[in-house]
């Protein structure tokens, strides 16, 4: 199928039946999804799920065994150079020419985009400023720390003012301030209109940044949706946990709650009970009334909605350790 549509499209990325096989092993198995312009799109999956393979195909570093994809309407098979002109890519492991100065490396990469020497110098200085690497422009990359190398890789992905930024585990191994810095930068770029495709293991990061997520497992897409929609889907399909705190509990009150329809189990720990309710039941007001009726001084009721970790584990078939 041909996905070339020129540049005028509302989709940033369209993946159609994308497949990658290695010697009989299917790393990516006929996947379909769409990333809209302006999205911060989270790409989640356990190790070996096919995330990096998918990203390598989207960035044209790897040829698909079947299917194709288009970025801003440019087909990855038919127009790989056009694709690469409009994207920025930060790989999971970014290596540099260690014997080169950082600014020379960026200048080398920038030259591919036909950026004039003057513009290159200005742009590179801006990037060093933005990424807080000032003063290290003339240092060789072999003297850089891991965090600095990650920043330099990020800078290299912004040289061409990309419309789509593809980031493969950008914050792995970084300290909390640098992670915070990266997240802030991603939000800023997104506000400026950059579509971000973010592959990450850090679920809290995806939850905090992304408006839509795609979950891949064993090479297949398990879900693609907004996080709140996935949360609702997962909540409806699984038992709900309600946590109640109190000053003092009696056996009589506990038995009364246990007898309520929809209550599966109750676990007590000091001044807290955790009640497991059947999926779809909504009897929290009834529980509260029962406890009050038995003169229990309830100090708090919390019903936990499914977060991204619950969604993730539920969809890939894992178990929560909470």
């Amino acid at each position, binding site marked *: 199928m041909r996905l070339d549509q020129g540049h005028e499209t509302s989709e940033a990325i369209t993946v159609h039946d994308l497949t990658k096989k290695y010697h009989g092993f299917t790393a990516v198995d006929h996947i379909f999804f769409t990333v809209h312009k302006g999205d911060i799109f989270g790409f989640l999956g356990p190790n070996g799920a096919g995330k990096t393979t998918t990203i390598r195909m989207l*960035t*044209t*570093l*790897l*040829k698909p065994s079947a299917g194709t994809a288009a970025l801003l309407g440019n087909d990855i098979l038919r127009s*790989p*150079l*056009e694709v*690469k*002109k409009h*994207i920025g*890519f930060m*790989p999971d*492991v*970014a*290596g*540099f*020419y*260690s*014997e*080169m100065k950082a600014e020379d490396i960026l200048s*080398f*990469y920038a*030259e*591919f*985009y*036909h950026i004039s020497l003057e513009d290159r110098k200005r742009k590179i200085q801006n990037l060093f400023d933005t990424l807080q690497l000032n003063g290290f422009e003339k240092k060789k990359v072999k003297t850089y720390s891991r965090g600095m190398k990650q920043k330099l*890789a990020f800078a*290299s992905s912004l040289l061409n003012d990309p419309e789509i930024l593809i980031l493969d585990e950008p914050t792995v191994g970084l300290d909390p301030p640098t992670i915070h810095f990266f997240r802030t930068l991603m939000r800023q770029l997104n506000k400026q209109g950059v579509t971000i495709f973010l592959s990450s293991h850090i679920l809290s990061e995806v939850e905090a940044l992304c408006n839509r997520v795609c979950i891949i497992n064993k090479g297949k897409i398990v879900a693609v949706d907004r996080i709140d929609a996935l949360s609702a889907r997962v909540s409806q399909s699984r038992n709900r946990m309600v946590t109640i705190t109190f000053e003092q509990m009696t056996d009589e009150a506990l038995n009364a709650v246990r007898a309520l329809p929809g209550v599966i189990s109750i676990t007590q720990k000091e001044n807290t009970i955790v009640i497991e309710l059947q999926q779809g039941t909504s009897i929290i007001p009834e529980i509260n009334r029962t406890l009050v009726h038995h003169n229990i001084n309830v100090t708090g009721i919390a019903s936990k909605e499914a977060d991204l970790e619950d969604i993730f584990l539920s969809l890939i078939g894992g178990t929560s350790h909470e």
Partner: protein
Amino acid sequence: MNKLSDTLWGIYVVAKREFIMNLKSVRMIILMIIFSLFVLFAAYVGSFFFGFIGDVPGTGDNVEKGPVIIAFFVVQFIGFIGPIIAIALNFDIIVKEKIQNSLNLLLCRPISKRSIALGKFIGVTGALAVPVIFVNLVALLIVMVISGKMIELIQIFGFLLLTMMFLAIYLALAQIISSVVKTTTTAILGGLGIWFLFWLFFPIINVFIHSAAISLINPGTSYSVCIEHILGLSTGPYMIPLWGFYLILITWLLATIVLAVELFHWKED
């Protein structure tokens, strides 16, 4: 920008970086010191051997031939040390990028894998050409001063061009190895294997089967015969016409370049 100019631009950007980085590298400096010592030593020994310096009287024939006979003597040394220099310079040109993970950041630029491979080859060949041409010119100049006779400009040009073609074949062979292996150790061993193949294996096979065809396969043979021809020292008749040796050299060069480019293009890492 159209596709062709984009492609050419990409090749130029990669070639420029390889050229500059190689010229500035410690490895190149060391290799060129070794190469210079070999070439200048060969020029000195040749001058002495053919009676242009020292007490050994030169034969009338050699003196008549003048400095070209020394130049041809130098070529025999280049034929030995040149491949080692070329392999040592280029054995890790691709594998090093794989190991240090710098390939992804390069491949995500608007450039094809073929252009990267070709750009790297051109860049490193250019970088090697600078000192090689300089050292050989110095050696030829010394030879001309010693002998008091000039070598024709076309002969100098031919000598340098053929020498660079010969070295470029080994640069491309080293790049082929570098494209297919996963470690620098394997790349070094592969490079040494190539050198042994042409400098030990082929001559040994030749001894046993006495086939001139075997030596025709060796690019060193064609290089030597072509230099002989360009310097006016041809001692034929040969098994094939003289132009055949030029053709073999050009075929070797083109085939190894194409193979280096295509292997890098098709190999998935």
